[in-house]
Protein backbone atom coordinates (compact mmCIF):
# COMPACT_ATOMS: atom_id res chain seq x y z
CA UNK A 1 0.00 0.00 0.00
CA UNK A 2 2.99 2.42 0.13
CA UNK A 3 1.72 3.19 -3.31
CA UNK A 4 2.97 5.69 -5.88
CA UNK A 5 6.47 5.02 -7.11
CA UNK A 6 7.83 8.35 -6.01
CA UNK A 7 11.45 8.89 -6.91
CA UNK A 8 13.27 9.06 -3.58
CA UNK A 9 15.08 12.37 -3.20
CA UNK A 10 17.06 11.00 -0.25
CA UNK A 11 19.02 13.95 1.09
CA UNK A 12 21.27 13.35 4.09
CA UNK A 13 19.12 15.79 6.01
CA UNK A 14 15.70 16.27 4.52
CA UNK A 15 14.88 19.99 4.51
CA UNK A 16 11.30 19.82 3.22
CA UNK A 17 8.49 17.57 2.11
CA UNK A 18 7.26 17.79 -1.44
CA UNK A 19 3.75 17.22 -2.73
CA UNK A 20 4.48 13.56 -3.44
CA UNK A 21 5.90 13.12 0.05
CA UNK A 22 2.66 14.42 1.52
CA UNK A 23 0.81 12.03 -0.75
CA UNK A 24 2.96 9.17 0.52
CA UNK A 25 2.24 10.20 4.12
CA UNK A 26 -1.52 10.17 3.47
CA UNK A 27 -1.29 6.76 1.85
CA UNK A 28 0.90 5.48 4.66
CA UNK A 29 -1.65 6.70 7.19
CA UNK A 30 -4.40 5.00 5.19
CA UNK A 31 -2.41 1.78 5.23
CA UNK A 32 -1.83 2.05 8.98
CA UNK A 33 -5.52 2.66 9.61
CA UNK A 34 -6.34 -0.37 7.49
CA UNK A 35 -3.84 -2.50 9.40
CA UNK A 36 -5.12 -1.25 12.76
CA UNK A 37 -8.81 -1.23 11.93
CA UNK A 38 -9.54 -4.10 14.26
CA UNK A 39 -7.57 -2.84 17.21
CA UNK A 40 -8.93 0.72 16.92
CA UNK A 41 -12.41 -0.74 16.85
CA UNK A 42 -11.70 -2.87 19.87
CA UNK A 43 -10.42 0.13 21.81
CA UNK A 44 -13.61 1.97 20.89
CA UNK A 45 -15.78 -0.98 21.89
CA UNK A 46 -14.35 -0.79 25.40
CA UNK A 47 -15.26 2.84 26.07
CA UNK A 48 -17.27 3.92 23.04
CA UNK A 49 -19.38 2.28 20.41
CA UNK A 50 -16.90 0.09 18.63
CA UNK A 51 -16.63 1.83 15.30
CA UNK A 52 -13.59 4.08 15.31
CA UNK A 53 -11.46 1.72 13.22
CA UNK A 54 -14.32 1.02 10.85
CA UNK A 55 -15.06 4.72 10.46
CA UNK A 56 -11.48 5.77 9.88
CA UNK A 57 -10.92 2.91 7.47
CA UNK A 58 -14.01 3.87 5.48
CA UNK A 59 -12.82 7.46 5.38
CA UNK A 60 -9.20 6.81 4.50
CA UNK A 61 -10.04 4.29 1.82
CA UNK A 62 -12.36 6.91 0.31
CA UNK A 63 -9.48 9.36 0.49
CA UNK A 64 -7.14 6.97 -1.31
CA UNK A 65 -9.77 6.27 -3.95
CA UNK A 66 -10.22 9.99 -4.43
CA UNK A 67 -6.50 10.59 -4.69
CA UNK A 68 -6.13 7.70 -7.14
CA UNK A 69 -8.85 9.17 -9.32
CA UNK A 70 -7.78 12.79 -9.45
CA UNK A 71 -4.49 14.13 -10.70
CA UNK A 72 -3.02 16.44 -8.12
CA UNK A 73 -2.09 19.98 -9.03
CA UNK A 74 0.97 19.89 -6.77
CA UNK A 75 -0.72 22.20 -4.25
CA UNK A 76 -0.16 20.63 -0.82
CA UNK A 77 -2.82 22.87 0.71
CA UNK A 78 -5.42 21.76 -1.84
CA UNK A 79 -4.41 18.16 -1.32
CA UNK A 80 -4.92 18.40 2.44
CA UNK A 81 -8.27 20.12 1.96
CA UNK A 82 -9.41 17.33 -0.35
CA UNK A 83 -8.46 14.85 2.32
CA UNK A 84 -10.36 16.87 4.91
CA UNK A 85 -13.48 17.25 2.76
CA UNK A 86 -13.48 13.56 1.94
CA UNK A 87 -13.19 12.65 5.60
CA UNK A 88 -15.99 15.02 6.55
CA UNK A 89 -18.33 13.44 4.05
CA UNK A 90 -17.45 9.79 4.57
CA UNK A 91 -16.45 9.19 8.19
CA UNK A 92 -19.33 10.56 10.22
CA UNK A 93 -19.37 10.19 13.98
CA UNK A 94 -16.98 12.28 16.03
CA UNK A 95 -13.99 11.22 13.98
CA UNK A 96 -15.34 12.71 10.75
CA UNK A 97 -15.66 16.35 11.79
CA UNK A 98 -12.52 16.16 13.93
CA UNK A 99 -10.14 14.56 11.43
CA UNK A 100 -11.90 16.46 8.67
CA UNK A 101 -11.30 19.73 10.43
CA UNK A 102 -7.70 18.77 11.21
CA UNK A 103 -6.93 18.27 7.52
CA UNK A 104 -9.03 21.21 6.35
CA UNK A 105 -7.21 23.58 8.68
CA UNK A 106 -3.84 22.11 7.79
CA UNK A 107 -4.80 22.65 4.18
CA UNK A 108 -5.71 26.23 4.81
CA UNK A 109 -2.37 26.82 6.52
CA UNK A 110 -0.52 25.16 3.65
CA UNK A 111 -2.63 26.81 1.01
CA UNK A 112 -0.80 27.34 -2.29
CA UNK A 113 2.40 25.65 -1.13
CA UNK A 114 4.13 23.14 -3.40
CA UNK A 115 6.23 21.80 -0.58
CA UNK A 116 6.44 22.19 3.20
CA UNK A 117 9.48 23.24 5.16
CA UNK A 118 9.80 21.82 8.69
CA UNK A 119 8.33 25.05 10.02
CA UNK A 120 5.52 24.90 7.46
CA UNK A 121 4.75 21.43 8.71
CA UNK A 122 4.76 22.58 12.32
CA UNK A 123 2.55 25.51 11.41
CA UNK A 124 0.11 23.36 9.50
CA UNK A 125 -0.09 20.86 12.32
CA UNK A 126 -0.63 23.67 14.79
CA UNK A 127 -3.45 25.10 12.71
CA UNK A 128 -5.04 21.71 12.30
CA UNK A 129 -4.95 21.01 16.01
CA UNK A 130 -6.39 24.43 16.75
CA UNK A 131 -9.25 23.51 14.45
CA UNK A 132 -9.82 20.26 16.32
CA UNK A 133 -9.79 22.09 19.63
CA UNK A 134 -12.19 24.65 18.32
CA UNK A 135 -14.59 22.05 16.92
CA UNK A 136 -14.44 19.61 19.82
CA UNK A 137 -13.67 21.87 22.77
CA UNK A 138 -11.44 19.22 24.27
CA UNK A 139 -8.44 20.08 26.38
CA UNK A 140 -5.39 17.98 27.11
CA UNK A 141 -6.32 15.40 29.73
CA UNK A 142 -9.86 14.94 28.44
CA UNK A 143 -8.85 11.57 27.00
CA UNK A 144 -9.22 12.39 23.33
CA UNK A 145 -7.10 12.59 20.20
CA UNK A 146 -5.92 15.93 21.54
CA UNK A 147 -3.86 14.00 24.07
CA UNK A 148 -1.72 12.55 21.29
CA UNK A 149 -1.75 15.52 18.95
CA UNK A 150 -0.75 18.24 21.39
CA UNK A 151 2.34 16.48 22.78
CA UNK A 152 3.23 15.54 19.20
CA UNK A 153 3.00 19.14 18.10
CA UNK A 154 4.89 20.44 21.15
CA UNK A 155 7.72 17.93 20.78
CA UNK A 156 8.01 18.80 17.10
CA UNK A 157 8.31 22.48 17.80
CA UNK A 158 10.70 21.98 20.67
CA UNK A 159 12.96 19.74 18.60
CA UNK A 160 12.97 22.06 15.64
CA UNK A 161 13.58 24.99 17.96
CA UNK A 162 16.46 23.06 19.51
CA UNK A 163 18.08 22.52 16.13
CA UNK A 164 17.19 18.89 15.55
CA UNK A 165 17.04 17.58 12.01
CA UNK A 166 13.58 17.33 10.53
CA UNK A 167 13.74 13.56 10.66
CA UNK A 168 14.71 13.64 14.33
CA UNK A 169 12.03 16.20 15.09
CA UNK A 170 9.43 13.99 13.37
CA UNK A 171 10.58 11.01 15.37
CA UNK A 172 10.40 12.94 18.62
CA UNK A 173 6.98 14.19 17.61
CA UNK A 174 5.78 10.62 16.99
CA UNK A 175 7.35 9.41 20.22
CA UNK A 176 5.64 12.15 22.21
CA UNK A 177 2.33 11.35 20.53
CA UNK A 178 2.84 7.73 21.45
CA UNK A 179 3.53 8.67 25.05
CA UNK A 180 0.48 10.93 25.04
CA UNK A 181 -1.58 8.09 23.65
CA UNK A 182 -0.37 5.75 26.40
CA UNK A 183 -1.00 8.40 29.01
CA UNK A 184 -4.68 8.39 28.09
CA UNK A 185 -5.04 4.98 29.71
CA UNK A 186 -5.57 6.12 33.31
CA UNK A 187 -7.56 9.20 32.34
CA UNK A 188 -11.27 9.63 32.95
CA UNK A 189 -12.86 10.81 29.70
CA UNK A 190 -14.46 14.21 29.72
CA UNK A 191 -15.35 14.52 26.06
CA UNK A 192 -16.95 12.31 23.47
CA UNK A 193 -18.80 9.09 23.93
CA UNK A 194 -16.35 7.72 26.50
CA UNK A 195 -17.30 10.50 28.90
CA UNK A 196 -20.67 8.78 29.40
CA UNK A 197 -18.78 6.12 31.26
CA UNK A 198 -17.40 8.40 33.91
CA UNK A 199 -14.88 6.58 36.10
CA UNK A 200 -15.40 3.41 34.11
CA UNK A 201 -13.56 4.98 31.19
CA UNK A 202 -10.28 4.87 33.14
CA UNK A 203 -8.00 1.94 32.37
CA UNK A 204 -8.56 2.01 28.62
CA UNK A 205 -6.54 3.68 25.89
CA UNK A 206 -8.42 6.28 23.86
CA UNK A 207 -9.06 5.15 20.28
CA UNK A 208 -8.84 8.65 18.79
CA UNK A 209 -5.51 9.26 20.50
CA UNK A 210 -4.39 5.96 19.05
CA UNK A 211 -5.31 6.87 15.48
CA UNK A 212 -3.72 10.29 15.95
CA UNK A 213 -0.50 8.64 17.02
CA UNK A 214 -0.67 6.57 13.83
CA UNK A 215 -0.98 9.80 11.88
CA UNK A 216 2.16 11.38 13.33
CA UNK A 217 4.06 8.12 13.26
CA UNK A 218 3.20 7.77 9.58
CA UNK A 219 4.79 11.17 8.99
CA UNK A 220 7.92 10.17 10.87
CA UNK A 221 8.18 6.88 9.02
CA UNK A 222 7.45 8.34 5.62
CA UNK A 223 9.66 11.39 5.88
CA UNK A 224 12.25 10.22 8.34
CA UNK A 225 13.03 6.98 6.57
CA UNK A 226 15.77 8.02 4.19
CA UNK A 227 18.32 9.41 6.60
Amino acid at each position, binding site marked *: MAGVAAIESAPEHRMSVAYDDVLRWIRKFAAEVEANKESLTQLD*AAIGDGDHGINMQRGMSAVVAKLDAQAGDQDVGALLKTVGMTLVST*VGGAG*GPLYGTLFLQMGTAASGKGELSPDDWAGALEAGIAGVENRGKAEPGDKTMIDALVPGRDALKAALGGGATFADALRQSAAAAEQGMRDTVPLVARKGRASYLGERSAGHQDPGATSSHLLLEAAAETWGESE
Partner: protein
Amino acid sequence: MKKLINKPDAVVTEALHGIAAAHADLVNVHFNPNIIVRADAPVQGKVGLVSGGGSGHEPMHGGFVGPGMLDAACPGEVFTSPTPDQMLDATKAVNGGAGVLHIVKNYTGDVMNFEMAADLGQSEGIEVEAVVIDDDVAVQDSLYTAGRRGVGTTVLAEKICGAAAEERQSLSEVAELCRKVNANGRSMGMALTSCIVPAAGKPTFDLGEDEIEIGIGIHGEPGRERVKLAPAAEIVERLTRPILEDLPFEKGDQVLAFVNGMGGTPLLELYVVYNDLNRLLGEHGITITRNLIGPYITSLEMAGCSITLLKLDDELTRLWDAPVKTAGLRWAA
Protein backbone atom coordinates in the same frame (compact mmCIF):
# COMPACT_ATOMS: atom_id res chain seq x y z
CA MET B 1 -22.40 -13.16 13.48
CA LYS B 2 -25.77 -14.32 12.22
CA LYS B 3 -27.63 -11.70 10.32
CA LEU B 4 -30.02 -11.38 7.42
CA ILE B 5 -27.61 -9.35 5.35
CA ASN B 6 -25.54 -9.68 2.23
CA LYS B 7 -22.37 -7.71 2.88
CA PRO B 8 -21.70 -5.98 6.18
CA ASP B 9 -20.82 -2.66 4.58
CA ALA B 10 -23.78 -2.72 2.20
CA VAL B 11 -26.41 -3.15 4.91
CA VAL B 12 -27.43 0.49 5.14
CA THR B 13 -27.58 1.03 1.38
CA GLU B 14 -29.56 -2.14 0.76
CA ALA B 15 -31.97 -1.39 3.57
CA LEU B 16 -32.47 2.08 2.09
CA HIS B 17 -33.31 0.50 -1.25
CA GLY B 18 -35.80 -1.67 0.62
CA ILE B 19 -37.33 1.39 2.29
CA ALA B 20 -37.49 3.18 -1.06
CA ALA B 21 -39.31 0.25 -2.64
CA ALA B 22 -41.64 -0.30 0.29
CA HIS B 23 -42.68 3.23 1.15
CA ALA B 24 -42.70 5.15 -2.11
CA ASP B 25 -46.09 6.57 -1.11
CA LEU B 26 -44.54 8.22 1.92
CA VAL B 27 -40.91 8.96 1.14
CA ASN B 28 -38.29 9.42 -1.51
CA VAL B 29 -34.88 8.02 -0.83
CA HIS B 30 -31.85 9.80 -2.28
CA PHE B 31 -28.49 8.11 -2.46
CA ASN B 32 -24.99 9.59 -2.16
CA PRO B 33 -25.48 11.32 0.09
CA ASN B 34 -28.20 9.18 1.63
CA ILE B 35 -31.36 10.90 2.79
CA ILE B 36 -34.96 9.89 3.27
CA VAL B 37 -37.30 12.70 2.34
CA ARG B 38 -41.03 13.10 2.71
CA ALA B 39 -42.61 12.40 -0.68
CA ASP B 40 -44.26 15.81 -0.94
CA ALA B 41 -41.29 17.83 0.36
CA PRO B 42 -40.76 20.70 0.54
CA VAL B 43 -44.11 21.64 2.04
CA GLN B 44 -44.46 25.34 1.36
CA GLY B 45 -44.76 27.50 4.45
CA LYS B 46 -44.12 24.64 6.85
CA VAL B 47 -41.08 24.39 9.06
CA GLY B 48 -39.01 21.48 7.79
CA LEU B 49 -38.03 18.90 10.39
CA VAL B 50 -34.76 17.07 9.88
CA SER B 51 -33.27 14.47 12.12
CA GLY B 52 -30.74 11.77 11.63
CA GLY B 53 -28.19 9.63 13.27
CA GLY B 54 -26.49 6.33 12.91
CA SER B 55 -28.47 3.49 11.39
CA GLY B 56 -29.41 0.45 13.45
CA HIS B 57 -32.11 2.22 15.47
CA GLU B 58 -34.96 1.57 13.04
CA PRO B 59 -37.71 2.62 12.76
CA MET B 60 -36.01 5.78 14.06
CA HIS B 61 -35.43 8.05 12.14
CA GLY B 62 -36.28 7.02 8.58
CA GLY B 63 -39.48 5.32 9.68
CA PHE B 64 -40.69 8.60 11.12
CA VAL B 65 -40.62 10.58 7.90
CA GLY B 66 -44.05 11.56 6.69
CA PRO B 67 -46.97 13.88 7.36
CA GLY B 68 -47.14 14.85 11.01
CA MET B 69 -43.59 13.92 11.84
CA LEU B 70 -40.21 14.37 10.11
CA ASP B 71 -39.63 15.89 6.69
CA ALA B 72 -36.30 14.16 6.26
CA ALA B 73 -33.97 11.74 7.98
CA CYS B 74 -30.24 11.33 7.46
CA PRO B 75 -29.17 7.74 8.02
CA GLY B 76 -25.52 7.31 8.89
CA GLU B 77 -23.58 4.10 8.82
CA VAL B 78 -24.62 1.70 11.55
CA PHE B 79 -24.30 3.52 14.89
CA THR B 80 -22.29 6.30 13.25
CA SER B 81 -23.51 9.85 12.92
CA PRO B 82 -24.31 10.87 9.36
CA THR B 83 -22.18 13.49 7.64
CA PRO B 84 -22.82 17.19 7.08
CA ASP B 85 -23.41 16.77 3.35
CA GLN B 86 -26.35 14.48 4.08
CA MET B 87 -27.78 16.97 6.52
CA LEU B 88 -27.23 19.84 4.14
CA ASP B 89 -29.00 18.04 1.31
CA ALA B 90 -31.85 17.14 3.63
CA THR B 91 -32.09 20.72 4.84
CA LYS B 92 -32.30 22.02 1.29
CA ALA B 93 -34.81 19.36 0.27
CA VAL B 94 -37.29 20.20 3.03
CA ASN B 95 -36.95 23.94 3.18
CA GLY B 96 -40.40 25.28 2.37
CA GLY B 97 -39.44 28.83 3.21
CA ALA B 98 -40.27 28.68 6.90
CA GLY B 99 -36.89 27.46 8.04
CA VAL B 100 -35.61 24.08 9.11
CA LEU B 101 -35.29 22.53 12.55
CA HIS B 102 -32.55 20.00 13.19
CA ILE B 103 -33.42 17.56 15.95
CA VAL B 104 -30.08 16.26 17.14
CA LYS B 105 -29.38 13.53 19.65
CA ASN B 106 -26.63 14.53 22.04
CA TYR B 107 -23.63 12.58 20.86
CA THR B 108 -20.42 14.40 20.08
CA GLY B 109 -20.42 13.14 16.52
CA ASP B 110 -24.03 14.01 15.81
CA VAL B 111 -23.68 17.43 17.37
CA MET B 112 -20.51 18.32 15.44
CA ASN B 113 -21.80 17.03 12.12
CA PHE B 114 -25.11 18.84 12.52
CA GLU B 115 -23.21 21.99 13.51
CA MET B 116 -21.19 21.85 10.34
CA ALA B 117 -24.38 21.25 8.34
CA ALA B 118 -26.20 24.12 10.01
CA ASP B 119 -23.30 26.45 9.17
CA LEU B 120 -23.44 25.28 5.58
CA GLY B 121 -27.23 25.66 5.46
CA GLN B 122 -27.14 29.16 6.91
CA SER B 123 -24.49 30.12 4.42
CA GLU B 124 -26.89 29.04 1.68
CA GLY B 125 -29.50 31.35 3.15
CA ILE B 126 -31.68 28.80 4.92
CA GLU B 127 -32.76 29.59 8.43
CA VAL B 128 -31.70 26.65 10.54
CA GLU B 129 -32.22 26.01 14.22
CA ALA B 130 -30.97 22.98 16.09
CA VAL B 131 -32.26 21.45 19.28
CA VAL B 132 -30.19 18.85 21.04
CA ILE B 133 -32.03 16.07 22.86
CA ASP B 134 -30.28 14.86 26.02
CA ASP B 135 -32.71 12.87 28.12
CA ASP B 136 -30.74 9.85 29.30
CA VAL B 137 -30.54 9.96 33.08
CA ALA B 138 -28.09 7.06 33.10
CA VAL B 139 -25.39 9.57 32.28
CA GLN B 140 -24.10 12.24 34.61
CA ASP B 141 -24.89 15.66 33.25
CA SER B 142 -21.89 17.79 34.02
CA LEU B 143 -19.62 20.39 32.61
CA TYR B 144 -16.95 17.73 32.58
CA THR B 145 -18.71 15.34 30.23
CA ALA B 146 -20.32 15.47 26.83
CA GLY B 147 -23.58 15.65 28.76
CA ARG B 148 -26.44 13.25 28.58
CA ARG B 149 -27.19 11.07 25.60
CA GLY B 150 -30.26 11.60 23.50
CA VAL B 151 -32.51 8.56 23.55
CA GLY B 152 -36.25 7.83 23.81
CA THR B 153 -37.45 11.40 24.11
CA THR B 154 -36.20 11.93 20.57
CA VAL B 155 -39.08 9.86 19.19
CA LEU B 156 -41.60 11.84 21.20
CA ALA B 157 -40.04 15.18 20.21
CA GLU B 158 -40.15 14.22 16.54
CA LYS B 159 -43.83 13.33 16.78
CA ILE B 160 -44.86 16.35 18.80
CA CYS B 161 -42.80 18.88 16.84
CA GLY B 162 -44.00 17.28 13.62
CA ALA B 163 -47.56 18.01 14.65
CA ALA B 164 -46.69 21.59 15.54
CA ALA B 165 -44.97 22.13 12.21
CA GLU B 166 -48.01 20.69 10.47
CA GLU B 167 -50.04 23.39 12.27
CA ARG B 168 -47.72 25.91 10.68
CA GLN B 169 -46.11 26.99 13.91
CA SER B 170 -43.01 29.09 13.27
CA LEU B 171 -39.45 27.84 13.44
CA SER B 172 -38.84 29.51 16.77
CA GLU B 173 -42.07 28.08 18.15
CA VAL B 174 -41.30 24.58 16.99
CA ALA B 175 -37.76 24.85 18.33
CA GLU B 176 -39.06 26.12 21.65
CA LEU B 177 -41.53 23.25 21.77
CA CYS B 178 -38.74 20.80 21.06
CA ARG B 179 -36.75 22.21 23.97
CA LYS B 180 -39.86 21.90 26.13
CA VAL B 181 -40.29 18.24 25.22
CA ASN B 182 -36.64 17.64 25.96
CA ALA B 183 -36.94 19.47 29.27
CA ASN B 184 -39.90 17.32 30.30
CA GLY B 185 -38.68 13.94 29.07
CA ARG B 186 -36.38 11.51 30.85
CA SER B 187 -35.21 8.05 29.87
CA MET B 188 -33.16 5.11 30.95
CA GLY B 189 -32.41 1.80 29.28
CA MET B 190 -31.07 -1.63 30.05
CA ALA B 191 -29.70 -4.55 28.09
CA LEU B 192 -30.01 -8.29 28.51
CA THR B 193 -27.73 -9.00 25.57
CA SER B 194 -25.37 -7.11 23.30
CA CYS B 195 -25.97 -5.92 19.80
CA ILE B 196 -23.64 -6.85 16.95
CA VAL B 197 -22.50 -4.12 14.56
CA PRO B 198 -22.39 -5.80 11.13
CA ALA B 199 -19.03 -4.31 10.21
CA ALA B 200 -17.55 -5.39 13.54
CA GLY B 201 -18.98 -8.89 13.30
CA LYS B 202 -19.03 -9.61 16.99
CA PRO B 203 -20.91 -8.49 20.08
CA THR B 204 -20.03 -4.98 21.22
CA PHE B 205 -19.87 -6.15 24.80
CA ASP B 206 -20.07 -9.38 26.72
CA LEU B 207 -22.61 -10.05 29.41
CA GLY B 208 -22.62 -13.16 31.52
CA GLU B 209 -25.59 -15.54 31.35
CA ASP B 210 -26.98 -13.97 34.52
CA GLU B 211 -25.88 -10.37 34.04
CA ILE B 212 -27.65 -7.31 32.73
CA GLU B 213 -26.42 -3.80 32.01
CA ILE B 214 -28.40 -0.98 33.59
CA GLY B 215 -28.18 2.40 31.88
CA ILE B 216 -27.11 1.02 28.50
CA GLY B 217 -26.82 3.37 25.55
CA ILE B 218 -28.50 2.70 22.24
CA HIS B 219 -25.14 1.97 20.64
CA GLY B 220 -24.23 -0.60 23.24
CA GLU B 221 -22.27 1.94 25.24
CA PRO B 222 -21.76 0.57 28.73
CA GLY B 223 -24.20 1.90 31.28
CA ARG B 224 -24.27 2.75 34.95
CA GLU B 225 -23.72 -0.65 36.37
CA ARG B 226 -23.69 -4.30 35.62
CA VAL B 227 -25.91 -6.29 37.92
CA LYS B 228 -27.40 -9.73 38.26
CA LEU B 229 -30.48 -10.59 36.26
CA ALA B 230 -33.52 -9.57 38.28
CA PRO B 231 -37.29 -9.82 37.95
CA ALA B 232 -38.90 -7.32 35.59
CA ALA B 233 -40.52 -5.43 38.45
CA GLU B 234 -37.13 -4.80 40.02
CA ILE B 235 -35.59 -3.73 36.73
CA VAL B 236 -38.48 -1.35 36.13
CA GLU B 237 -37.88 0.09 39.56
CA ARG B 238 -34.15 0.55 38.84
CA LEU B 239 -34.89 2.35 35.59
CA THR B 240 -37.80 4.43 36.79
CA ARG B 241 -36.54 5.72 40.12
CA PRO B 242 -33.71 7.82 38.63
CA ILE B 243 -36.11 9.09 35.99
CA LEU B 244 -38.64 10.19 38.59
CA GLU B 245 -36.05 11.81 40.84
CA ASP B 246 -34.35 13.65 38.05
CA LEU B 247 -37.09 15.85 36.64
CA PRO B 248 -38.59 15.35 39.24
CA PHE B 249 -41.93 13.79 38.37
CA GLU B 250 -44.44 14.36 41.12
CA LYS B 251 -47.70 13.13 42.52
CA GLY B 252 -50.49 14.31 40.29
CA ASP B 253 -48.38 14.42 37.14
CA GLN B 254 -49.80 13.08 33.92
CA VAL B 255 -47.26 11.38 31.73
CA LEU B 256 -46.73 9.69 28.44
CA ALA B 257 -45.05 6.37 29.23
CA PHE B 258 -42.91 4.95 26.46
CA VAL B 259 -41.73 1.39 26.94
CA ASN B 260 -39.27 0.84 24.15
CA GLY B 261 -37.89 -2.48 22.99
CA MET B 262 -34.20 -2.49 22.14
CA GLY B 263 -34.75 -4.74 19.15
CA GLY B 264 -34.41 -8.29 20.42
CA THR B 265 -37.00 -8.33 23.18
CA PRO B 266 -40.43 -9.82 22.49
CA LEU B 267 -43.44 -7.54 22.70
CA LEU B 268 -44.90 -9.93 25.28
CA GLU B 269 -42.13 -8.91 27.68
CA LEU B 270 -42.60 -5.22 26.97
CA TYR B 271 -46.18 -5.58 28.17
CA VAL B 272 -44.94 -7.25 31.34
CA VAL B 273 -42.66 -4.24 31.80
CA TYR B 274 -45.50 -1.84 31.06
CA ASN B 275 -47.64 -3.58 33.67
CA ASP B 276 -44.93 -3.14 36.30
CA LEU B 277 -44.35 0.47 35.26
CA ASN B 278 -48.04 1.27 35.41
CA ARG B 279 -48.26 -0.13 38.93
CA LEU B 280 -45.11 1.66 40.09
CA LEU B 281 -46.25 5.02 38.77
CA GLY B 282 -49.63 4.45 40.36
CA GLU B 283 -47.90 4.04 43.70
CA HIS B 284 -46.29 7.44 43.14
CA GLY B 285 -49.59 9.06 42.25
CA ILE B 286 -48.50 9.57 38.66
CA THR B 287 -51.03 8.82 35.93
CA ILE B 288 -50.17 7.46 32.51
CA THR B 289 -52.49 9.24 30.11
CA ARG B 290 -50.70 8.27 26.89
CA ASN B 291 -48.40 5.39 26.08
CA LEU B 292 -46.21 3.94 23.39
CA ILE B 293 -45.05 0.33 23.62
CA GLY B 294 -42.80 -1.38 21.13
CA PRO B 295 -39.44 -1.22 19.37
CA TYR B 296 -39.15 2.38 18.17
CA ILE B 297 -35.59 3.42 18.99
CA THR B 298 -33.69 0.20 18.79
CA SER B 299 -30.15 -0.99 19.03
CA LEU B 300 -30.06 -3.66 16.34
CA GLU B 301 -30.78 -7.03 17.93
CA MET B 302 -30.01 -6.02 21.49
CA ALA B 303 -32.42 -7.54 23.99
CA GLY B 304 -33.59 -5.12 26.62
CA CYS B 305 -35.80 -2.12 27.00
CA SER B 306 -35.83 1.51 27.87
CA ILE B 307 -38.38 3.56 29.70
CA THR B 308 -39.12 7.16 28.79
CA LEU B 309 -41.49 9.35 30.72
CA LEU B 310 -42.69 12.66 29.33
CA LYS B 311 -44.62 15.00 31.56
CA LEU B 312 -47.69 16.04 29.62
CA ASP B 313 -49.77 19.16 29.55
CA ASP B 314 -52.72 19.92 27.28
CA GLU B 315 -50.53 21.25 24.50
CA LEU B 316 -48.23 18.23 24.41
CA THR B 317 -51.17 15.85 24.65
CA ARG B 318 -52.98 17.54 21.78
CA LEU B 319 -49.90 17.45 19.58
CA TRP B 320 -49.18 13.83 20.47
CA ASP B 321 -52.74 12.91 19.48
CA ALA B 322 -52.56 14.77 16.16
CA PRO B 323 -52.55 12.61 13.02
CA VAL B 324 -49.31 11.06 11.87
CA LYS B 325 -48.64 8.97 8.80
CA THR B 326 -45.24 7.36 8.68
CA ALA B 327 -43.98 3.83 8.24
CA GLY B 328 -43.20 3.60 11.95
CA LEU B 329 -45.98 5.56 13.64
CA ARG B 330 -49.37 6.02 12.14
CA TRP B 331 -52.72 7.20 13.33
CA ALA B 332 -55.56 9.44 12.34
CA ALA B 333 -57.17 12.21 14.35
